[in-house]
């Protein structure tokens, strides 16, 4: 397994276990690797669109899709853990990635009312809702934080 993959797995496993993404220093310490190599791996993973660094602070992770590194309006409860997702798609992506049931608390983008979705036994429970995509697929990564 190459080093970039080792870093990728460490990032995602850390988030899965703790709900929080590690910094470059955290990863370097955990893997016993030089910080410069971890920084290079973060850059490669960003180019592969597997993480998004915090604007202005590339040592921190803003997104490791479907997980968010900051609190958002998409709260995903899995057992006794609370994760934050980047969008509605990612909110369902968290139970999909963790292979676990979840309760998603979000806000209706139309009327601002709270909305709850539940994934149970590997399927979302029926809910009369639609999900709106505002940005065409070709431009999602022009500004992925906005998207």
């Amino acid at each position, binding site marked *: 397994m190459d080093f970039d993959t080792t870093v990728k797995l460490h990032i995602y496993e850390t988030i899965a276990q703790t709900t929080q993404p590690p910094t470059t220093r955290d990863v370097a310490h955990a893997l016993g690797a030089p910080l410069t190599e971890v920084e290079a791996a973060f850059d490669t993973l960003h180019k592969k669109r597997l993480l998004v660094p915090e604007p202005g602070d590339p040592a921190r992770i803003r997104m490791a899709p479907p997980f968010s590194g900051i609190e958002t309006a998409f709260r995903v409860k899995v057992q006794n853990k609370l994760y934050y997702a980047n969008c509605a798609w990612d909110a369902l*992506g968290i139970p999909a990635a963790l292979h676990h049931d979840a309760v998603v608390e979000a806000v209706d983008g139309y009327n601002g009312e709270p909305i709850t979705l539940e994934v149970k036994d590997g399927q979302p429970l029926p809910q009369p809702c639609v*999900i709106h995509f505002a940005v065409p697929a070709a431009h999602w990564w022009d500004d992925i934080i906005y998207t």
Partner: protein
Amino acid sequence: MLNLNQLWYLAVTWYGNRLTVDSRRPAPDEMVEIFAKIGLTGPFWDPQADQWHAAT
């Protein structure tokens, strides 16, 4: 506009193996197939103009 079942399909397809060694973001041609499978076609769902491959 997507319904919940379409969104769940995207979530599972995109992220179902994200915590594994081989996980990666789907390539543009794979994205087209994934979207088409749930009826998402047309320019809005065409990622081919996306430049992600230029950075890998």
